[in-house]
């Protein structure tokens, strides 16, 4: 009996391993990488502004006691154009939205705002894309919810869909 167990147990482990390996190989390799910064205080940063109406963004601007959304976008990014109406609706609802323009120039940002509207209070110019890494973002657009103490509370990866607007409004209200 003992002998049978010493044979069966390793065999069972081996078979389990093979099954897990085969299932793992069949799973799609790509997966969205969520930020590990959720629940953490936003790192220190200070970005220059895009224009007179949208001054620069610093970490201290996100610690003023009000819940804010921080939208990573680029004038070169197509989904950022598509989500513009959703951002406008959130801004119309009284939510403060700051932006970080990733790998962009003030001229291109000005043209983008002209065409798709400007829901942003402040726009920090991040020419080197460094803030994407600081926030644990992998692309644009991404939107972060930062509470009044500067703690990152939530992240939305990719363009904001129309059906997500209510969810985001509720999240902002809950963080306040």
């Amino acid at each position, binding site marked *: 009996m*003992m*002998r049978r167990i*010493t*044979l069966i*147990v*390793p065999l069972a*482990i*081996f078979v389990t*391993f093979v099954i897990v390996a085969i299932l793992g190989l069949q799973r799609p*390799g*790509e*997966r969205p*990488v*969520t*930020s*590990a*910064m959720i629940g*953490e205080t936003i790192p220190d940063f200070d970005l220059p502004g895009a224009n007179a109406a949208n001054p620069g963004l610093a970490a201290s601007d996100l610690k003023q006691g009000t819940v804010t959304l921080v939208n990573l976008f680029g004038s070169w990014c197509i989904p950022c154009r598509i989500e513009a109406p959703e951002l406008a609706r959130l801004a119309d609802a009284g939510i403060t939205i700051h932006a970080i323009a990733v*790998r962009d*120039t003030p001229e291109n940002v000005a043209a983008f705002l002209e065409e798709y509207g400007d829901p942003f209070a402040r726009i920090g110019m991040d020419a*080197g*894309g*460094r803030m*994407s*890494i*600081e*926030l*644990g973002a*992998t*692309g644009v657009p991404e939107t972060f919810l930062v509470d009044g103490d500067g703690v990152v509370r939530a992240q939305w990866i990719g363009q904001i869909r129309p059906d997500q607007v209510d969810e985001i409004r509720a999240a902002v209200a809950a963080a306040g």
Partner: protein
Amino acid sequence: MKRLSIILLAMMMSAFAEAPLPDPAEERAAQALFQELRCLVCQGQSIAESDAELAADMRALVRERIAAGEAPLDVRNYLVRRYGDWVTFSPPARGTHLILWAAPLLLVLIGGIAALRMFRRPAS
């Protein structure tokens, strides 16, 4: 003409960002770290071999921090704090990752015991 000069400037800037560090030892340390950091937008590749902009930004950050005297492990931990363990190809030996490190030893041990028992017992 203005557009062309902007493009040229951008090319010069990106070439500068990709320039190896002046200190060969630091550059070697940076290159070694590139190999074990995952490009998060082209996930099978390391940032050493990826052309993605995020990978270029991450290479620039690694070089900058190593040039500033930071240890490669600290630079890696900096990225792990922002992206989680998934960003590195060598998962740290803690939490559920312990299974990865312990499983081979455990399996060899179990197999060895099983084999010993089989060989010791004379065939009846």
